[in-house]
């Protein structure tokens, strides 16, 4: 008997989604918290050189969960897109909304047309004058795009993290408090302490002139964590 060559599109999409989800669950999660000072991005990352969080443009940052090689490629393509747009038009014309849409199109296209879907989930955030103007976009492996308010999480434990943040978050949160909140969420979902050396933290500082992105150094993180504990 000949093997059936027909697989229903529904089945195919389901298989691909399951495959992608499995890959993403293996990786650690990332949190973004919008507060008084700006948008804080926190990831658990034992590597100090292979980053999950990065600057894209003056007010825009990127975070990727899942397979490093894949979101790194997306990150670089995003920087190229942003720099090209800023060069051809003006710096103000580069927005997270348009970048998130391009990401969504690209990832969605790969999901439906390629054999292997991308095992990634990404976050594109833009800092505004105040928390009400902050924009947080979450794009998943199939290109689905979601617009979040105040805080967002991506990666395997995203739902647990969101649940943790839901009640404890408020818009006026300070930098220290948002770090405590993010680390608390990561620890609660992993059920263990997270060491300061294993954290990757960056901020889009709304009060900083020009480029708003700043990465915390290892020494700064250890200091901050000690300050939080005492």
């Amino acid at each position, binding site marked *: 008997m000949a093997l059936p060559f027909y697989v229903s599109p529904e089945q195919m999409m389901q298989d691909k989604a399951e495959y992608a989800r499995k890959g993403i669950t293996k990786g650690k999660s990332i949190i973004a918290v919008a507060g008084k000072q700006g948008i804080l991005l926190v990831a658990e990352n034992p590597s100090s050189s292979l980053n999950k969080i*990065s*600057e894209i443009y003056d007010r825009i940052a990127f975070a990727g969960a899942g397979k490093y090689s894949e979101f790194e490629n997306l990150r670089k393509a*995003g*920087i*190229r897109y942003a*720099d090209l747009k800023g*060069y051809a038009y003006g710096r103000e014309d580069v927005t997270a909304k348009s970048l998130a849409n*391009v990401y969504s199109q690209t990832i969605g*296209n790969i999901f439906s047309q390629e054999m292997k879907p991308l095992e990634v989930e990404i976050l594109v955030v833009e800092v505004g004058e105040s928390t009400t103007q902050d924009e947080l976009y979450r794009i998943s492996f199939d290109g689905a795009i979601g617009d979040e308010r105040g805080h967002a999480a991506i990666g395997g434990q995203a739902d647990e993290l969101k649940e943790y943040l839901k009640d404890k978050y408020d818009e006026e949160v300070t930098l220290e408090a948002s770090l405590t909140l993010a680390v608390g969420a990561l620890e609660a979902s992993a059920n263990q302490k997270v060491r300061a050396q294993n954290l990757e933290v960056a901020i889009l500082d709304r009060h900083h002139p020009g480029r708003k992105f700043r990465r915390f150094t290892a020494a700064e993180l250890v200091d901050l964590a000690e300050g939080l504990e005492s």
Partner: protein
Amino acid sequence: MFLDLSYTGSSFCDLLTERFPFLLTKWEGLQFSPNEITPLPTGTTVLALKYQGGVIVVGDRQATEGTMISARRIEKVFKADERSAIAIAGVAGPCLELARLFQTELQHYEKLEGVELSTEGKANKLGQMVKMNFPMALQGLVVIPIFVGYDFKRAEGKIYKYDVTGGRYEEAEYYATGSGGGHARATMKKRYRPEIDEEAAIHTALEALYDAAEEDIGTAGPDFVRGIFPTIKTVTVRGIVDVEETQVRAVSENMVENRRRNH
């Protein structure tokens, strides 16, 4: 629109050349003759000099079209990134384009690679960009930058000058270029001392620029009537700082007063 995931380079300039050439100026095929085209905005004096702890880079503010003044407030000194700056002499259009392209280039590389280029790396990249402009330079559209940076590894300021072919030469003390560059260099040659501090460096630079403005019609001195003064940036361990216009005005007034007295 989809993102291009196939490109792998880290240079913005190369990205434009390979994938988006329409964003770069390519006038190679055209024949220019100075008599046939309307004069393009040119003329300038830009200079840089080292002092204890850093470098200053200075430019006048005037652009000329032939014998006409086309702009009085043009900027010729640009912050390239947090620790380097460029000053450009030549035809205004391509100069401004080069400055913007170079700024984007440095930032692009830093974001993609996660580290900044070395001071020497930046200087070499700028040389390649000047070289790209060489066919245009042959037709009269000359662009000549001065690059200054603070080298953290060696804890000193650096000055690089360029020729139209993209040749890159490091200067040990000071340099000036543009239509009044020779006059400015002559003044600095007489006044320069390596041990001077920032204040003395600003003074020397403004003296040099004033002398250039006296001899060269393409260069403007301080304009006390309109309140237009040369742009000065300092490059030190603290990064790039714009010298306040009030300070430039005060030093300029003092200098002119001294000249009047000694005349």
